[in-house]
């Protein structure tokens, strides 16, 4: 198969980027999208040009490293997959494929299609954890967790932190990512003790980092490779409202507690 690629090229964070059009030929339809880019990059290197930089690692849809906004969709034209699981048979021979980096103020471009997603780590550091040290823990079966709660918690915990929700949202909002973590921990008895502080701290950090706010369009859910539901956003709103109404008049600061 042959394709025309329109790829965003940007030398570094400060440089001005632009779209460059390329041709790529001889692609097998059983290749993954990233393998297509591998072949293309080898062709560029052989010609002595800089290869296109993009993030990728596990190539089995779980590490959350790969990104790419392909023809207007994060992770491209297939549902419930990451870019590394997208295959070229989803395209037609001769197609033009426009490849852009995630666009968000909080995810600045590092080079070409590679963006900086440290903002997500910072949100987790603000409170996306349960405050226990290693050791001195009661037996795992000492806490009973209803299966339904464990299952819902797992549904939310399946988030791979890729940032497709931010990329898909017209507001570049990180609500689905934050809500997934808030829900995962709030649904478990272990996480309830600090649920009120957690949600406030994480939301405060999210706002501070420059993500947009949620206008309930549902694009995040539609594009999430792990199909995480926006029900989690409603749960977070509820948690947040409860936390704000019930908390003492004291500012919640992000970070370990």
């Amino acid at each position, binding site marked *: 198969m042959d394709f025309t690629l329109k790829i965003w090229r940007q*030398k*570094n964070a400060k440089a001005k980027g632009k779209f460059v059009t390329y041709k790529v030929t001889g692609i*097998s339809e*059983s*290749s993954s999208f*990233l*393998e297509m880019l*591998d072949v293309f*990059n*080898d062709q560029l*290197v*052989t010609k*002595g*040009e*800089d*290869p296109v*930089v993009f993030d990728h*690692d*596990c*190539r*089995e*849809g*779980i*590490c959350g*490293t790969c990104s790419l906004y392909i023809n207007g969709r994060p992770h491209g034209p297939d549902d419930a*997959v990451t870019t590394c*699981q997208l*295959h070229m048979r989803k395209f037609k021979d001769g197609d033009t494929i426009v490849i852009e980096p995630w666009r968000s103020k909080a995810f600045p471009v*590092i080079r070409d299609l*590679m963006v*900086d*997603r440290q903002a*997500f*780590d910072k949100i*987790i*550091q*603000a409170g*996306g*954890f349960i405050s226990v*040290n*290693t*050791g001195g823990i009661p*037996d*795992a*079966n000492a*806490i009973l*967790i*209803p*299966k339904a709660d*464990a*299952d819902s918690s*797992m549904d939310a*915990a399946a988030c791979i*932190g890729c940032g497709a929700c931010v990329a898909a949202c017209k507001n570049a909002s990180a609500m689905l990512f934050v809500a997934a973590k808030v829900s995962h*921990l709030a649904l478990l008895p*272990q*996480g309830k003790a600090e649920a009120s502080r957690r949600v406030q701290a994480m939301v405060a950090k999210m706002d501070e980092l420059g993500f947009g706010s949620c206008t309930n369009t549902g694009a995040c859910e539609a594009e999430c490779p792990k199909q995480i539901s926006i029900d989690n956003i409603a749960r977070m709103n509820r948690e947040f409202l409860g936390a704000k109404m019930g908390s003492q008049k004291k500012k919640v600061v*992000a*970070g*370990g507690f």
Partner: protein
Amino acid sequence: MTKLNSKIPQGPVATKWSSYKDHIALVNPANKRKLDIIVVGTGLAGASAAASLGALGFKVKAFCYQDSPRRAHSIAAQGGINASKNYQNDGDSVYRLFYDTIKGGDYRAREGNVYRLAEVSGAIIDQSVALGVPFAREYGGLLDNRSFGGAQVSRTFYARGQTGQQLLLGAYSAMARQVSLGNVESFIRHEMLDVVLVDGRARGIIARNLVTGEIERHSAHAVVLATGGYGNVFFLSTNAMGSNATALWKAYKKGAFFGNPCFTQIHPTCIPVHGDFQSKLTLMSESLRNDGRIWVPKRKEDVEALRHNKIKPKDIAEENRDYYLERRYPAFGNLVPRDVASRAAKERCDAGFGVGETGLAVYLDFADSIKRLGRNVIEERYGNLFQMYQKIVDENPYENPMMIYPAVHYTMGGLWVDYDLMSTVPGLFVAGEANFSDHGANRLGASALMQGLADGYFVLPYTMQNYLADQINVPRFKTDLPEFEEAEKQVKSRLQKLFDVKGSKPVDHFHRQLGKIMWEYVGMARNKEGLQKAITMIRELRAEFWKDVKITGETNEVNPELEKAGRVADFMELGELMAMDALNREESCGGHFREEYQTPEGEALRNDEDFMYVAAWEYKGDDKEPALNKETLEYEAIEVKQRNYK
């Protein structure tokens, strides 16, 4: 020859760890914050170590090459994590887990370490639950278990098919908390390129900032390598694209011995290779073998007809199918251990009965199970795996049998460590898949997660304190010491050397070639002639690499080609060492199968007389042969037997 001291505590195996803990030296809280520890790698072992050491009060710097600690490849583990909780009342115990692990490893692991692993396994589950890992539950709210290969009890805890992900996110969140408390500093997109020794002790690392290209110096009182395995030597493996052996290899060159480098695990159920440009192999969970039957055609004409799409697999009559695992191993059938299943698949394909376009695949057929249990039961059990298969292969596994083939998955070998998990370089600790210690010649399913977390949560916090106790008066290290200067100079000159080649072929070309050599001669079945040939071929490839590799761009920018080049250069040297180790080990055991040493039925034949030892290789210089050191394995608690799955 007798430099190796494994420092196994005296006494019966069951009390070694507790008596060790009772007698080690400790560091008081006020002194801990004066001590720095570098942790390289943030997978299960690295993240849990960073979190636990940070919680104790040490100042930790954690490095990863990924863009977040959460992305380390531990995240891809599917099946589960073993622990001897005996929640099922089916007779599990610490001893039984210990025994199964030693036996599964074909009697090539160290008793003391493995017993400790089994002993702390329960606490790992407690710890993970406390951190919010949503393990599968029964309706009554208690934890659920499933069974895995190589055990007669149900001791595997799981979180759907994403156990590794959930455990890693637990450790990552604990580490994130320590970051916010100021005890851990996280360095992302940093690749360690050398370890720095001061007066013979590991005192820091040289790392390249992968965004700016800057070469940075970082000092500490001790260094932990938790950088995972080296399966990517084979180019195609189930490892992540970035998984590499550079940290291990640099440590090896600075004096850390490499233990059992040839012990590689080939996983039997992966999606087969589809073409020359494939970058990576995808694992299909071992659990599929519970309900799938593995077969190839009996007749060559059927093989031909299949290849030309003249017939479909279901057109082949029952009597013309060869269910070779059931035929050869009637007792265990399709559930033989990984190494046995992999070799059997290779044997059939080599004999010309393989299916698929390349002839390198066998069928994993669910038709019988669907008939017996109904499609919805199969869908409930394996729905997500079937969907994943369909996305990749574009075939419906409910209608046609899956095609699978073995692929490189895990490396049991790694840097040699003693009971403290310290390598032969004082102050250089090695944890998780990166060390050699617990899995012998073959790892059982669901044991890798257990080992990574055991090392990080429960072993290193004790053993490192023991090491650091006499270091409290050593002030923080300045990075302008001549040792750092020298190490940085060498790192820079090597990067420059790579650039200066200015050849004509991209790095991947060499990596692919290396992979082909390794898979052909140092893969599932090895023999003397092939191994010797591999060594020669790797040397030639290396020479060609340093003459003809082409790297674009600059050193001071994001440059994936440069990153890959450095890693592949190290892989080529490591590949040679693997071949040498395999050549030296004139026996078959676990994942290491030497064709010369097999029973008349074609099973692995161990030689306990001559090879019941850990081969620890010592670097002697670039142009010199490495020296072999042997750590003899002694079995006191377990009687050594031949494995039998017939």
